[in-house]
């Protein structure tokens, strides 16, 4: 027990002292995950919108496909991407394996179905009259889509936050296609795994605290958004 307390104390000291190595890992994590979520969000939300408002064959099958992807293990995505990016793979010439770009691509694949499924649910909850009112008042299609997004903004923000929470806390993809290279592809989760395997718990716990704080922040934000949605309903 004393050992745990001591290690936690050391972890807090590392965090508060602004340890350069530790904070560079945190920054890299956020940088990779933010890029992934920012690139994916517009495409995923448009797919969610098309699945909701479109009337084309196979719509339900596509939706079921995205829903089934919600529970795919991250190591499976990591393995798939590894096979694609390895020297002998179809995209080997791009030399992306063990780079931050590969981590971003992997995290994009991971959060895409989350954003589509939750975005779909948010858009489905919107009133059909939003679309019809916007169209009858002369709005072009693109503006009407933006209007629908704005009217369900709390639900969409919740989808984005959930997607971000999923990718910042994943370890399988980052480990397999990032390679856990210090100062280049080492992020919070791969660093925790490494430090723990080395028996150096202080840095692992410090990074764990950052992840926990982030999880708490995201949950608090989601609750706030839920409250705002109910207030404006």
């Amino acid at each position, binding site marked *: 027990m004393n050992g745990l307390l001591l290690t936690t104390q050391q972890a807090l000291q590392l965090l508060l002292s602004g340890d350069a190595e530790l904070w560079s890992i945190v920054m890299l994590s956020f940088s990779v995950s933010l890029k992934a979520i920012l690139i994916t969000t517009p495409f995923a939300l448009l797919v969610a919108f098309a699945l909701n408002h479109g009337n084309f064959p196979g719509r339900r099958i596509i939706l079921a496909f995205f829903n089934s992807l919600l529970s795919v293990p991250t190591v499976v995505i990591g393995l798939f991407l590894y096979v694609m990016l390895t020297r002998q793979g179809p995209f080997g010439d791009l030399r992306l394996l063990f780079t931050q770009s590969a981590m971003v691509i992997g995290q994009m694949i991971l959060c895409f179905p989350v954003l589509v499924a939750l975005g779909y649910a948010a858009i489905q909850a919107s*009133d059909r*009259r*939003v679309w*019809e*009112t*916007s*169209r*009858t*008042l*002369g*709005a*072009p299609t693109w*503006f009407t889509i933006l*209007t629908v997004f*704005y*009217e369900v903004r709390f639900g969409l923000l919740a989808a984005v936050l959930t997607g971000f929470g999923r990718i910042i806390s994943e370890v399988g993809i980052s480990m397999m296609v990032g390679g856990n290279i210090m100062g280049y592809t080492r992020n919070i989760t791969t660093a925790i795994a490494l430090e723990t395997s080395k028996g150096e718990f202080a840095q692992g716990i410090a990074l764990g605290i950052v992840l926990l704080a982030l999880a708490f922040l995201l949950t608090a934000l989601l609750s706030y958004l839920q409250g705002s949605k109910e207030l*404006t309903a």
Partner: protein
Amino acid sequence: MNEPLFIFRGIEKSFAENEILRKVDLSLYPAKCILLSGKNGSGKTTLLKIVAGLEKPDVAEIEYAGKTNSWKKAIRSIRKEIIYLHQQPFLFSGNVESNVAYGLRFTSLNRKQCRESVIKALEWSRLSDLAKIQANTLSGGVQQRVAFTRAWILKPKVLLLDEPMSNMDQESREQAFFLLCRMKSAGMSIVITSHVPQYFYGLADVQFHLSNGKLVQSELSACNDSP
């Protein structure tokens, strides 16, 4: 009678096996008001949405400016001339002013002209005092007036109203009726669906009854006598 603005011919619409509209014809004249009656599920709303370009018919033609085209081809040109208002209007997040200004951003007016138009429109509907109020906090009757104003500001040729007074008290009905009269006298063609035709006595010029997918002209006086 003036020349019709638009003539919708041979509108047909089915949902699954159910034929809702069977070769329906509808002519819209400037400064004239059509009252549309019919049972629930008779297809009144579907007809209005087809005319507004919000619902696709199985078959339909539109005659305007001396030309007859298929619905799909013609509706792109005339959509901006026709505005449809829901039974319970949807007001966007934001205040009354922003709702009234919504459609103006798709016109050629500049920002200053838009602002002036909004001020005039709010005065027209006597909503100036509520300009900064969040639209979705207003009562049903006032929300309907905001929706009227939002339509009026765009100066459409045709206004389609689906049960516009169904959820209004006496005072709100009088105010809404007053606004509709002003719209009609400004030259708008108005089509109203209602279960209570007597609300529109003095406004409607002709009444059609929709039954079994067919539109039949009926006596306006007869409908006004109904309970």
